[in-house]
């Protein structure tokens, strides 16, 4: 043939439009998976035909938090706003001044293990290891209040752990520690939030 015929190119400019459209659809219609919440562990069920075990806990070791059906808070016998709860719980857990009305102090130790299971560092501190935070709510309490209180109590513990790890590990916060170190700090300051067996204190369901 005399003159070379050019192959006609496929016009691909619409392709970009289509893929943009798809992209924008996905961007709008999806939510990044943000499933998060407060993790807790329930106590194992009581065997049937068994009386509730009477655990002897010294009175100074219990921190009682009650929430009534009007969402009011009674902490250690005093009406309290939920915003003060965190500080109050922290002073109770730490008992820095060795108050006789707060839990007694004990020396506790925990080992930071390295990857081979050898002791890398032994941690030692004085804490109130026998304390218990007892949380009781009414059937009429709203879920929102309950979560708020739970959140404050968990926050109190994490602030205590944070303060400790900053002191012991050169300014690193609890979240910046290695898993082994975190575990050791957790053993020193375990979360002891106990929820009473449910009761119905009068009032409607």
């Amino acid at each position: 043939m005399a003159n070379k015929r050019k192959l006609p190119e496929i016009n691909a400019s619409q392709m970009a439009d289509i893929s943009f459209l798809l992209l924008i659809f996905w961007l709008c219609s999806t939510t990044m998976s943000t499933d998060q919440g407060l993790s807790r562990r329930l106590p194992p069920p009581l065997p049937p035909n068994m009386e509730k075990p009477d655990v002897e806990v010294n009175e100074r070791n219990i921190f009682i938090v009650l929430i009534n059906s009007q969402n009011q808070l009674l902490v250690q016998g005093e009406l309290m706003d939920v915003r003060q709860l965190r500080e109050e719980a922290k002073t109770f857990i730490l008992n820095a001044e060795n108050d006789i009305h707060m839990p007694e102090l004990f020396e506790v130790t925990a080992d930071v293990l390295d990857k081979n299971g050898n002791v890398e560092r032994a941690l030692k501190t004085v804490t109130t290891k026998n304390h218990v935070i007892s949380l009781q709510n009414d059937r009429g309490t709203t879920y929102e209040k309950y979560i708020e209180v739970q959140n404050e109590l968990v926050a109190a513990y994490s602030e205590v752990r944070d303060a400790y790890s900053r002191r012991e590990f050169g300014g690193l916060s609890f979240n910046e520690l290695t898993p082994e170190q975190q575990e050791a700090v957790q053993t020193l300051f375990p979360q002891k939030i106990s929820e009473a067996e449910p009761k119905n204190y009068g009032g409607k369901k």
Partner: protein
Amino acid sequence: MAQIRKGGKKEVPGVNTSSLPDIVFMLLFFFMATTTMKEVSFKVDVKVPEATELQKLEKKSLVRYIYVGTPMKEYQKMYGKESRVQLDDAFAEVDEIEMFIENERNAMKESDQGLLTVSIKADKDTKMGIITDIKQALRRAQALKINYAATKRMSY
């Protein structure tokens, strides 16, 4: 010497956009892979409470959900306005939870059965009565790892 070309219209060459679709497709696939579709269609109205001490739920396959809230408008005629429980795609009674957990656990791999986590997605205006009943049911079903779904609180 510089030559000054005269005459003959000079066209501005078009920018080559043939690789644009490739880039956009790449973005598209990224989003398709990283996002998850809604697990169920909600029959109850759930607005989870706010909190600050949140932990992420790691493995989706180990998590089962229990939804609690008031029925949506279209179901209120049938089910009333009291808070109700939703398991998977249907309304359920609190007594059914034990069975539900049992079935779900048996459907899982044996090595994963102990790691089952139950996420309670409850509306913030729910009364604690029903939540307490659910918790008791979960205790009986030996599903002790639970998670109260919440969103991040930005300010007080």
